[in-house]
């Protein structure tokens, strides 16, 4: 079996970490060119957690990790997209999404906060 890492997410709002139930979390991978491959689709439970998803990581000797994109959304809140989240073999990546409620009469329909994870300066 190939090496794999685990991705899990928690979705909540406010500093008080109020969990958001039934938020959608999508795990996708950029394909060479422009397409995206859907790796997993998860709904959060009453504590705001998703069940963990396994993601295949590169074999030994190649890159130490694989990058995936994580999107969390729930009606009433602005979306958050985390680009290039890292997954290491045998390590669980926990992504927290702190969603901010959308203002009433938002100025745009596509309200998405994009977080780009750059690689370690190693």
């Amino acid at each position, binding site marked *: 079996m190939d090496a794999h890492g*685990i*991705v899990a*997410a928690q979705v909540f*709002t*406010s*500093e*008080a970490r*109020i969990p*958001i*139930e039934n938020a959608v979390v999508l795990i996708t991978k950029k394909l060479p060119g422009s397409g995206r491959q859907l790796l997993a689709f998860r709904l959060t439970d009453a504590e705001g957690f998703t069940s963990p998803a396994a993601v295949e990581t590169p074999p030994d000797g190649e890159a*130490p*990790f694989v990058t995936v994109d*994580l999107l969390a959304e729930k009606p*009433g*809140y602005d979306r*958050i997209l*985390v680009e290039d*989240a*890292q997954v*290491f*073999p*045998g*390590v*669980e*990546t*926990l*992504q*927290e999404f*702190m969603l*901010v*409620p*959308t*203002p*009433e*009469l938002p100025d745009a329909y596509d309200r998405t*906060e994009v*977080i*780009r*994870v*750059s690689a*370690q*300066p*190693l």
Partner: protein
Amino acid sequence: MPVVTPYIPERITVHLGAPSSWAANVTVPFADYVKNVLSSEVYPTWEPAALEANALAVISFALNRVYTEYYRSRGYSFQITSSTAIDQKYIQGRGIFENISELVDRVFSNYLRRAGFVEPLAAKFCNGRSVTCEGLSQWGSQELAQAGYGMFSILQSYYGYDLELVTNAPVAPVRESYPGAPVRRGDTGENVVFIQTALNRVSQDYPAIPKVAADGVFGALTEAAVRDFQKIFSLTVDGIVGRATWYQLVRLYVGILRLSELQSRGQTFTASSWAYPDAVREGDTGEKVRQLQYMLAVLAEFLPELPSVQVTGRFGAETKAAVAAYQQLVSLPVTGEADGAAWDAIYAQFEGIEQTVFRDGELFPDDAAAASRLTQLPAEAPAPGSKDEEETA
């Protein structure tokens, strides 16, 4: 001295860019900061000993910045930046790795110092391949760990053998060291002791400043020393230690920091019309100011860019800063004054929270929803078209 023992700050304010560049400040719990930095700096698949050594370097470096009021004494309101050239890498909102999270929860109240010194070690580090420096080499620590070195041996081999590991340091809220009011002749107490100690230390390099006894009494001799100090550092020569003089002393002396604590509970708010009154600005008092502060306090809970606000009913510098921060956030002209556009933007965002979080009631239990302002409104709602009795003063 105001604070002698270094402490672990409950929260740390990070500037997401180079110090003088425009960038947001975010305030996060200290342990979360360390987890984020460690996830952004090294690979979680490294040896546990290497990860722990790197964690202690990250913690000590951040604590040194806090302890020395490095940025505050230069006029900035944050404690550390996310710029890798000066500080450590931090990516707001990134995911963290489970093993790093467990490690940091175990060690975040530990830090490094040199034997005989109080301050946390300014534990510089670099990756050891493309960049080398005097401090810890990140790849080097991994290689030593693979060779069987323990966490402390790795640290000693980079930082020297006079290293000490402090465990279970106290956790305290961050406050600024400046006592809040100018310290002048006739004052006594620990703030005066700090001034005298700092002056004595500075006078070692600037012999024109006379030595004074650190007795905690601000007398004529201390005042003369302060005047000499102010003359040398181009400050107003008045013999009074105000904010500028204090932080010049701190900057020279390595002071101790306590920034104002981030809290914004305690909303005691009675419902009334939320319509925009007229420009609410610094110096105003009254119900409209309370409404504005209440909305800002709620927003600050949801938006990490906003400083917290106390609901006092008086529009002071704190409220002005919060309004300005919000204006900057939504790209309105930054005036620090709640004019029509700012009020409406704040209200719309607040109403979105009210709608989604409070009113739908799905997130708060019933008794909490009952305490929210909307359930109080029907009884106290003003008649349509009626004006608020308490207009802005």
